[in-house]
């Protein structure tokens, strides 16, 4: 895609503006954070006014919202979902569990640091983050998109080996499907 080329500055601007104002979210409701999504989306906080909207499948989504802790088992699925999404794509880590394990810091089956496995563009702190915080996170993401800095997908593509290695460490027997961009 042309968003990373230096030419077409105006074109880029328009494109990024459109992307910024149309964020389709695939909420991967693994953890307790999933309960914060409905108030964010519905009447009280109304994320749709920012162009944030739910998407049903990874093929249509722009943002993968990981709402809480990830066990080794769900991590596999999350990776799979992320790889099925189409460029451009972003990841938002939601809640402290994705940052440093949170209250599961000593659990034998949850991962502690998400960005070792997936390229996270924005982290939203809190346990759980309130909808205001979520909206702030989306705003941050929009800012990054507008600046063209939300290039996690690019990072992932370039450092695929490294990410794969990390992923393999916790699930060595998993036959990972090919990544097709």
């Amino acid at each position: 895609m042309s968003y990373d080329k230096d030419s077409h500055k105006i074109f880029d601007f328009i494109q990024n503006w459109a992307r910024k104002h149309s964020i389709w979210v695939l909420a991967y409701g693994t953890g307790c954070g999933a309960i914060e999504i409905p108030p964010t989306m519905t009447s009280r906080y109304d994320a749709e006014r920012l162009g944030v909207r739910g998407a049903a499948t990874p093929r249509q989504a722009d943002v993968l919202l990981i709402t809480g802790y990830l066990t080794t088992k769900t991590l596999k699925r999350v990776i799979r979902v992320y790889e099925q999404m189409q460029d451009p794509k972003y990841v938002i880590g939601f809640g402290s569990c994705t940052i440093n394990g949170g209250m599961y810091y000593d659990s034998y089956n949850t991962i502690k640091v998400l960005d070792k496995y997936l390229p996270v563009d924005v982290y939203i702190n809190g346990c759980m983050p309130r909808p205001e915080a979520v909206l702030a996170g989306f705003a941050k993401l929009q800012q990054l998109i507008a600046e063209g800095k939300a290039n996690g997908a690019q990072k992932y593509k370039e450092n695929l080996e490294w990410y794969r290695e990390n992923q393999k460490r916790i699930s060595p027997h998993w036959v990972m499907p090919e990544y097709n961009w």
Partner: protein
Amino acid sequence: MNTIILIFIIFLAGAILTFLASNIKGLLKEVLFLASVIVPVVMFFTGVKAGDSFNFHLAGFAFQWEITPLGYLFALIVTGLGVMAAIYAVSAMQKTKNLGLFYFNFILSIMSMLGILFSRDLVSFFIFWEIMTWSSYLMVVYQGKDVQKVGIKYFIFSAIGAYAMLMAIVMVYSLTGSMMIDKMIQSYAGFAFNMQIIIPILFLIGFGVKSAMMPLHVWAPGAYSHSPMAFTSLFSGALSKMGIYGMVIVMAGMIAYFPEGHWFRIVIAWLGGITAVGGTLWAIAQDDAKKLLAYSSVAQLGYIIVGVGIGTPLAMLAALFMAVMHALFKGTLFMAVGAIEKQTGTSNFTEVTGLIRKMPLTFLASLMGIIALAGIPPLGGFVGKWMLYESLIGSDHYLLVIVIFFSSTAAFLYCYKFLFGFFLGQEEKEWEHVKEAPVLMVIPMIILAGGTFLLGTFPGLVIKPISAGLEQLGYAATQGKYWEMSMLFNEWGDQVVLEPILYAIIAVFAFFLVFLLIKNHKNTRYVSTKDISTSGEVPKEHENLTFIQNFFQPFLRAVEPLMKRQIDFYYNGFGKGIEALFDFTRRIYTGNGQTYALYAIIFVVIFLLLKTTLFGI
């Protein structure tokens, strides 16, 4: 020698020679078979034109064979589809046992169909009709698996139909003293009133059985699905049309005496409508492609019967056009099923999936067949449907048009099921080895499918002979009033112009296809059907994610009241009752000598006592 008789002799001799040659190794029998189908067909196209006739006497009956325009039209269906099916059969039937019987019956059925179309007298009509019946019966039971019931059912119904027809024939004979169809039609007006009713009804039973009209259709699903697919394409495409041909002759031939809106016509049209709805609903419920197509044939013939029943010029055009189209697309579809069955060994949707990339040509042919079947423009099925609706609306059959519309809308359901079940869905490891069908099987399919495409834009090609046939039956000329080469009109002058529609569709389609592909054609790559959004789960190799069981269950639940009882149930009950009754008569023969002697004595005594009443003395 007259070409007509020569055609029949070649057919007959070819059938026997092929049968005799069937045990010889090598390609001799195939060559003979193809020759004995193709040579007479070529002779038919070159040496015969409408109006040729051949007369002779046999067993005290005058026989007259003549090629009428209408017969010529149906003969086009029979010969065209026959040749295609024959080419297909050579490849499809390879390595089957008892090939001689297959070829023999195949040739005989083509011959008998042509015979029916050429006959202008009722005796030879009936003779060819019966030859057709038993040769197709032998085809139904040919594969030999679980055919007892199916074969007997087919033959019983055919026999009932044929004998009803025979009764009508002898009644006509007793009334007119002649076996000529023309004579029958001419003198129909002079018949007594009850004869005027009974004779058409009897004929209708005969033709209705062949064209699988409700409630006489129960043989059709089994028979269609059990005979070899190479033949079923002919069976459903051409053989069932003979019933339609007969109906056209009887109904349209007596046009002057059955004016439009006559109750008899309405009854037939409604029977056709019910057939269409029932066939469609049952087709939706099937899991086996052959059964599905069989019920679909029943439904399609229902439309044709509606058209024939209504009997306005536009309706007749519609019915006959649909007959041609049905031959084309149903031939294609049955051939496709045959190809799939040959390549995979089964024709059940629940077993085979995802063949689209393995058998692309078969898919293409099926796709076109299905689009034509569903009546979607720009393929030919649409033309027939359009004319049928317009004729129904124009002739004030308001409820019937709703019924037909319901049926043809519901037909989308099974159309989709057919394509999805075989070609789409998950590509399974089990069918990885499947290859495209042999060339000889694909070519006929593609040709037939191409026919639907051509006729969708230039229906005039076929409507012209249809119109000629109708004129022979006493209809006014219809060109310019209802149709042009690529235009259709209804009763009120509203039109559909097919050519620009085709171009518009092609243009838009091409534009958007290019639009979808051009930007990053190279970056786009194929991913297997396992790579789908399944909540992140990666399906295992052996896992099957195809959704095909209970495919239309919600819909079937919605229409459940319509499908509660199968007519089969009543027929079976009737059959059982009859057998029980016969078991009772069987007991008359006790096997005891005294009883028999007693019978003899009683016989004498009774007659001696009743002699006055019995003999009037």
